[in-house]
Structures are given as C-alpha cells and as structure tokens.
C-alpha cells in the first residue's frame, strides 16, 4: 500500500512537471499574445493541481492534508481569474489577436504598396 | 574549494550588478531597482551563511537534533522590512522630483539646476 502511494505520487508529480515545461515551451513558441496566454493558463493550472495531488499522496493524514486541499481550492479560484484579467486588460488596450497566418501576410502585403 | 565558496562568489556577482545599475544608469527609478537588487544579494549572503548541512528550519520539534542558525534570520527579517520602507520613501521622492522638474533622468535634472543658477 505504501509503495502504491509512493508510485502514484511520483507519477502525479512527474505529470505536473511535464505540464509546466510544456507550458513554458508554448510560451516561447506561440506567435501571438492570446495563444500564449491560452497555453500557459490551462497547463499551469492543471500542473499545479497535479503537483498538489502528488504532494497530498505523499503524506495523507492530519493538518497538512487540509492545508493542501485549501491551497488547491484557492488555486482553482485564482489562476483562471488572473488569466481572465490579463486577457481583458489586453482587449481594453486594443491588442487584436492574429486570426490566421494567411490574413496576417495579406494585411502586410496590402499595407506595403 | 570552489564548492565551499561559490555561494559567496554568486553573492558578489549579484552585488556588483546592483552596484553597476546604481552608478551607471541615469533614470532614478532604475537606480532604485538596482539598490533593491543590491539589498537582496546581501540577504542571500547572510542566509547562506546561516545554513548548516543536514539541519532543518529553526522551529523546535520532536526528533530533530540539528537546526540551522536562527540569528541571521532575525537580522534579515528586520532588514527586509526596513528595505521596503526606504524603497517606498525613495519612490515618493522620485514622484515629487518628476513633478518639480518634469523629468527623472539625472542628466536633465542637473542641467535644469545649472540653468537656474
């Protein structure tokens, strides 16, 4: 039973780390602000949840478990709200998303006579 | 020897970067940022001196024999809070300078002062 908990906690922690790294790769490779935020927002929240569940499985008793559950609920509240705040601030400042690569090259071609 | 001393070298590098920002850049806000980097590097210096190999956080608990040294922690707690007090005052002064002179670049402020004299 103990080894099962250890292995499953290790699996959760590894999945969480992989999601963090892939969010970072998405941040660097995506072309536009909104797509980057989408990549980071989704993967970061899920990665935090996975890591917290992995930590919970390490020591599933007592006050520590309760504190980790509270942190989990708070993160689920706060992280998507932060992404929403960023996106609405960008819209408020007239940062338009790049809809299509073809459309972007067409715009450049038409604006360079 | 490198493994034993490299934490001090990293601290010296960070300190010099902060020092360089303070003396080489003209913008007042950037100087305050450089000062903040300098302060944090000093904190890292003290805290890295407090660590004992194999020790844990200095909170008394059952079954732990080796603790990290708590005295530098106390010093740095005070230092962090005093640091932010001085940063807040520095920023307030920068805002007032901007209102009085119209700019926060050091060169332009000196020129305006020389013109007035």
């Amino acid at each position, binding site marked *: 039973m103990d080894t099962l908990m250890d292995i499953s906690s290790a699996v959760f922690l590894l999945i969480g780390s992989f999601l963090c790294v892939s969010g970072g790769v998405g941040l660097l490779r995506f072309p536009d602000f909104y797509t980057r935020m989408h990549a980071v927002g989704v993967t970061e929240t899920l990665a935090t949840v996975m890591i917290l569940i992995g930590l919970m499985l390490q020591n599933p008793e007592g006050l520590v478990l309760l504190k980790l559950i509270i942190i989990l609920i708070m993160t689920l509240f706060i992280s998507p709200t932060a992404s929403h705040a960023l996106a609405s601030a960008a819209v408020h400042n007239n940062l338009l998303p790049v809809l299509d690569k073809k459309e972007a090259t067409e715009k450049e071609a038409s604006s360079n006579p | 020897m490198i*493994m034993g001393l490299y934490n001090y070298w990293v601290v010296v590098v960070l300190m010099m970067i902060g020092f360089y920002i303070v003396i080489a850049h003209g913008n007042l806000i950037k100087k305050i940022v450089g000062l903040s980097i300098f302060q944090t590097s000093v904190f890292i210096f003290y805290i890295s001196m407090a660590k004992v190999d194999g020790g844990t956080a200095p909170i008394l608990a059952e079954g732990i024999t080796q603790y990290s040294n708590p005295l530098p922690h106390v010093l740095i707690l005070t230092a962090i809070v005093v640091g932010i007090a001085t940063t807040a005052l520095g920023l307030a002064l920068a805002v007032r300078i901007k209102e009085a002179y119209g700019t926060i670049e050091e060169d332009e402020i000196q020129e305006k002062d020389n013109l007035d004299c």
Partner: protein
Amino acid sequence: MVATAIAIVKMKDLFAIIMLLGIYSLLSACFFVAMDAVDVAFTEAAVGAGISTLLMLVAITMTGRVENPSRHKPALALFVVVVTGSLLIYGTLDMPYFGLAQDPVHLHVAPRYINDSMQEIGVPNIVTSVLASYRAFDTFGEVVVIFTAGMGVLALLSVVRHPKDVAIDNSKIDAFNKCMHEEHLILRIVAKVLIPFILLFALYVQFHGDYGPGGGFQAGVIFAAAIILYTMLFGMNTARRVINQSATQLFAAVGVLLYGSVGVISLLEGKNFLDYSALSADPIAGQHLGILLIELGVGITVTAVMVIIFFNFAGRRNDQQNKENNDL
C-alpha cells in the same frame, strides 16, 4: 537569478524591469526556503514580490515608462565595478566554507539560543522568540522605522481634499460604480469571495507565529494586500469611503504605542524595559503574553502604514488625472 539581474541591466522598458524584479524577489524567496529560512522566505515573498512590485508600478504610472538611453560611456563604471568585485572575491577566500557545522558563526551565540529558548520562553519558533523577546528592542526600532516611512510618504505625497469636493464625489461615485460593475464583473465577484479568506489567513499568520513561520510583519503585509486588492478593483473613491483615512493614521500610531506601553509597564513593575516576566505571575505566561501583545502592535502598524503608503501614491495619481481632465 544572475540571468534575471543581467536582463534588468540591459532593458530600457521600466515596466518589464519591474516585472523582472518581482521574479527576482520570488526566486530569492525560493532560495531562502532551500536554505531552511522559512520565516525570511515568507517575508521576502510577501514584501518583495508583492508590495514592492506594486508600489513601483504605481510610481511608474506617474513618472513615465521608458528610460532614456545614457549619453556617456559606461567604461568608468564598469572599471570601478570590476575592481570592487575582484577585491571582494579576494576577501571571500578567507571565509568559512558553506554549510559546515563547525563554522565560527554557529559556535558561540546560537547554541545558547537554540538550547535555552524553550525553557526560558516556551515558544517553539526560535526566530520569533529571538525577534520578540531576546531582541525586542531592535524590533521596536524597526516598527518605529516603518512608522517614520509612512509619515514621510504622507508628508511628501498627501493631497488635501476640500469638503465640497468630497460631497460632489459621493453622488458621482454610485453612477460610476454601476457602469464599472458590468465591465469588471468576474474580477469583482471572485475578489469578493476571496478577500474574507485572505483576511482570515492574515489573522492565522499573525497568531500562529509562535509555532510556525509567521508573525507580525507577514500578517500586516497580507492584511494590507487584501485592502489594496479591494481598492484596485473598486476604485479609490469607494475605497476612501470604506477605509477612513484618519482612522488608518490613528491605527499606525496605536501599534507603536502598544509596543511602547508593554515596555513601559515592565519598567513600572520594577524590571528592565521590555522584560516580559514582569507582566504576569508565572514568567513563561508573561513571555507568551508579551510576545502576543507586541506582535499585535507590529501587525497593526505594518498594515496601517502599507495602506497609507498605497493610498497616498494612488491618490496622488488620481489627483494628477483629475487635473489633466479639468485642464482639457
């Protein structure tokens, strides 16, 4: 962290520099956790990555976002920096190695505190016991420094508001709030759900400082962060109605007064200044009571001063904006 610091040197956009400073503070907080300094990490994360970044952002809205490129060559500055750096590294060659238990810094004073703290004071967190009891006088000086900083910002940046301006504001505020509510609906609702929990967490940190990381400073900063969150989302005018400015200034003074009174009471009982065993019949209960009272004083003062500083920065900005609108 070195990479972040070098990036700060190279960049010209102050907004990005402040964000990098926030990342730098958070990384150093993680470093402090790795060095077993949990109290310090807590304070650095709350203060450096939270309040400091916020204050700098508010200052930038008033002073301008981009730095002018420097007109003189940085060669002399680089030379000075390299010489100083090499002298310092030469100095570190004599220092004791990292982490050994026989370093002189661990040998003389620290074991006395680690061994005797439980019998003399009865508080598991050694950092709190040293900060609040053995070295309480230094902490008193620290609280007075924070109070002075708050008064300094008040002297530099406060804006005098005439009573007739306040009367007009009240009727405009409600109309403004109604149309703003639609725009920021999600943020306002989530904030209203979260702010009570933030305040509860601040209270927990304040009173749990004896048994785990925490204490007056961290709790004060988290309290102030909750109030600042409310102010940012609902506007300065609404926040001014909710948080009375003169009451906040009074609270800042009350915290320092509480701290000083505990010391003076010990004097009146015939013992040294800030000697807590004078507060109660049993010396250990006296220590507990003394630590509780002064941490409370510290928390109250830190909260009030942080709120005063933020309100003055943001109020100055509001005033500048109103003047620009009226001139246009």
